[in-house]
């Protein structure tokens, strides 16, 4: 069975790019355009892995991580942050609220896919 991935990014370009890359790798891909949308999609689809941007309107990536970790969706799904940022402060913050990993944008296909495979529970 294919892994299902939820990609959360407010940029349509990034969403499409993630979808293209991940679908080519054989994953099932759902996208959300901000943290709040992401929470909906987590509840709705129970993805195997969540990839999320940090800077987003409505609810940012931290908000999404917190919401998921606080049990909104009743799942301990791995969450990978995909961000152009890489400052230790941000990483610390993400880690402390429950991010499972951090990937720096722009990603290359192999890095992204192996990062997913590395955290996926399958």
């Amino acid at each position: 069975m294919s892994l299902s991935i939820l990609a959360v990014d407010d940029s349509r370009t990034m969403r499409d790019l993630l979808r293209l890359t991940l679908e080519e790798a054989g994953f099932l891909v759902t996208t959300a355009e901000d943290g709040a949308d992401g929470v909906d999609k987590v509840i709705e689809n129970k993805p195997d892995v969540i990839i999320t941007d940090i800077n987003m309107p409505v609810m940012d990536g931290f908000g999404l991580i917190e919401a998921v970790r606080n049990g909104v969706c009743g799942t301990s799904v791995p969450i990978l942050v995909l961000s152009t940022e890489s400052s230790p402060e941000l990483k610390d913050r993400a880690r402390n609220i429950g991010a499972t990993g951090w990937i720096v944008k722009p990603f290359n296909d192999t890095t992204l896919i192996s990062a997913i495979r590395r955290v996926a529970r399958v």
Partner: protein
Amino acid sequence: MASLIELRQVFFQECEEQLEDLTDGLTALEGSEDFSNLDPEIINRMFRAVHSVKGGAASFSLDAITQFAHAYESILDELRSGKLTLNQKIINTFFTSADYLTDLVSLGAENVEPIAAELESKIKDLSALSGSMKFGAGVSEEDDCIAAFTPLALSGEMQFPPVEDVNGSVFEIYFKPTLDLYANGHEPVQIFRELSTLGVLEVQCKFDRDFKWDQAEPAIEWHLVLSTNQSESEILEIFEFSEPYAKIEISSKVADITVSAPIESVSKHPASTPTMEKPNAAPDPAGEVHSAEPSAIRSAISAAPKATVRVDLDLVDELINLVGELVITQSVMTQSITEQDGIGGRQLSTTLEDFKSLTRTIQEGVMAIRAQSVKPLFQRMARIVRETAQIAGKEVRFATEGEDTEVDRTVIERLVDPLTHILRNAVDHGLEDAALRSQAGKDRIGTVTLSAAHRSGRVVIEVIDDGGGVQREKVLSSAIEKGLVPQTAQLSDSDIDRLLFLPGFSTAASVTNLSGRGVGMDVVNSEIRRLGGRVAIISHPGSGTTISISLPLTLAVLDGMVVDVADETMVVPISAIVETIRPDTSQIHQIGPAARMIAVREKMVPIIELGAVFGCAPIKNHTNDGILVIVEDDKGEHFALAVDKIRDQRQVVIKSLESNYGHVPFVAAATILGDGQIALIVDLDEITHQVSVDQSRSIQSIEAIA
């Protein structure tokens, strides 16, 4: 599935939206009452916009955009965190930087590399704003930033070649997870699998037999032995995100020391743990079936932006066309049913009315699809004002009103040039320089306002400046000098103002390189006319000028007066009609053998026989039975069109003649009337120009052309 090329297009499209957000934010910031107390959401939105541009650009290896967006983002971040206090100078730099980013994006879309020196200086402009030393270093910092884009964490790859000859060190790792490790999406087996990419890994699992079942912590711990030539930091990096959720102890051993004996169970296979020992705390998501295409409906957690759909414009046009047909068919049907008296009775006429209003509603709805807010146009214009102000060396405050007003997108596109010209004029000629303004007791900074509003089924766009107004004496003398008006002309103030629209008119005492460009207000006027609109100018000496453009909401329909001309039915655009009169013989003056004029409020207005223009009937004597439609052309001249009968005033759907045939002289387009017959829409400007070309010649000259 989208290809990368398509994605690139999506990216550039999205950039436009983000740049719009950025400029929006800047405009909002500029309008803030207190620069030390800014709305954080505005800055956040701007930051996100630039940030998204950067992220996307980096993905497509658009380095210049990435670099510049990064510099911009860093400054915005300082602003966001309060390290930087906003002032007008910073806002100006932000604006010019936004403009430059727009340029970079356009260049990127065309695969053109920007001029390196310019990029560098623009980045310097931004970094100069920085309060922090780190950023102040300038461009050299950029290399760092770009380098930082290489993935840091999770960079090990599954395909990493196993280290065969391990000459390095041996690390002993003690790993005892907490419940939170699993809750946060980590999986020991995955971590070990990753460790195994660094070298040879032996995994020993210890299960606590005295495990108390009420304990909330997993009763499991691991002893790992990793033989690797990598350093300890590489190992730590793998634990980077799981580190807070487990007790991890790493100790280094000399390579030749043998691994101590396993305690309970030993697994030589690096990447496997007994599934039995998997703590219950980690639910296994396997086996759940997920739908790849979730429903698009989402609950509104907070005010989400309006969802939009991108549609091929051709599809929309096709739909508009079809709805136009529907409207026509409906009116044909209504006409033929009402012609047959008594059929159906009241029931039918009620149904027919419903059908009619339904059709109208659909038509309006479909037209609305093509409509777009004028905001992007206004933002573009803001840039024009900024640039013009800079070149002219004037300080200008640019204000907009009614940005959300929606207009047909074709109209918007075709407004760019006329508005650019009007705004350049307003800044360059309209506003006085600061010294002059102070003298006059005005604010040193001039204001130019661009506004849009819907007014009685039309769109009114106005450019208002608080400058000195039209200098009428100068305009008049210049017009006389150029022979545009006779020396003895007695012109009213508004007549003089309208002289600005005469072809080849230019008032600037000093011709600057701004407003000039060989285009005058006459071109603005004719372009607006071509859109079915009208331009008016209202000027108050000393306090400013307003240029007002009135436009139809769409180019697809036109308000027309349906007239009969020598057995043919024609449509005259209502926008140009001043009045209709049934003339008295005494008002008509014969001039020469064929030309006639009519005196309308003490003005002589030439009469144009519409039938003759179209070569379809000999000139009849209209003095008694004809009707004159007084129209105003793009120069403000009045003409009287002689027609036989006025039938109706109605909205007509514009049909192109060019698409299947070609241009027909004096005809702008065609339309289909209620009876299914085609009627031609007259091109007033073409007709009146023809008459004005040589007004002394008789109207028969037009016939001769035919």
